[in-house]
């Protein structure tokens, strides 16, 4: 009897491991930090691109009901591609868009804005990338949807898709 039960346990363990490995294969193997639900935005101050004055992000958040913080660089190709969508979003009433210029040269950033248009009510600088890390971002472009109380509602990694812009519009209305 003892042998029979140990055989059954062994077989069950076998099947269990098989199922786990089978399901493991369907997970992606690259890591993406999971969504920060209901976390507060890290408060930071930084220089404005045009005015050269230091601004605290908290002051900017209260201007409208919702704020979009978009991390971008002039050397980042997907940023160029998503820029038009940001231009469209900047027309929305309830929303203000703040740009965080990541590891860039002010001259290049200004040229980028001149060429492609400015959807941002303010552009802040992150010359060494440390502000972005403290926001929890790790690359460009990344976009955060924040409400008046500094709560992060949504985080978008990579170039904004049309579905994501529609989602943003839905949330702010």
């Amino acid at each position, binding site marked *: 009897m003892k042998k029979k039960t140990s055989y059954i346990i062994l077989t069950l363990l076998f099947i269990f491991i098989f199922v786990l490995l089978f399901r493991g294969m369907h997970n992606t193997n690259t890591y993406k930090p999971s969504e920060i639900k209901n976390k507060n935005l890290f408060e930071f101050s930084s220089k404005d691109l045009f005015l050269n004055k230091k601004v605290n992000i908290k002051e900017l958040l209260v201007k409208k009901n919702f704020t979009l913080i978009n991390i971008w660089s002039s050397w980042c190709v997907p940023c160029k591609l998503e820029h038009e969508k940001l231009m469209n979003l900047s027309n929305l009433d309830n929303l203000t868009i703040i740009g965080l210029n990541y590891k860039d040269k002010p001259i290049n950033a200004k040229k980028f804005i001149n060429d492609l248009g400015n959807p941002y009510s303010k552009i802040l600088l992150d010359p060494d990338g*440390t502000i972005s890390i403290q926001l929890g971002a790790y690359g460009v472009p990344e976009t955060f949807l924040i409400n008046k109380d500094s709560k992060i509602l949504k985080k978008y990694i990579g170039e904004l898709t049309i579905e994501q812009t529609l989602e943003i519009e839905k949330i702010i209305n």
Partner: protein
Amino acid sequence: MRDLKFLLVIILSLFFLQHYLKANENFLLVDKISKNLRCLICQGQSIYDSQSDFALSMKLLIKRKLEQGNSEDEIYQYLKNKYGEWIVYDPELNKKNLLLWAFPLILFIIGGILIFRKVFNN
């Protein structure tokens, strides 16, 4: 005696090797921490090895936080809050990872018991 000759040979060779056996005093804590962190862009590398923008910014941030007086563990905790436990190579010792740390040790003890019984039950 042969054994004294040994002692002599080894001590002499060590005098010679002494020049090469200086432990590195310039050991930077930033390096130690960044070696323990994973790069999110180049996911097969540590922050220390990676040359990606993310890694370079991260190294700056670590340096700054150390200067502000944060301890090594505080920095790991801070980064885990932002990016998840995945970012640290050294797995935490918590309920979820208990099996990870304990299982090999349990197996070692079981192995020891098995051998003990085999050798002493005669």
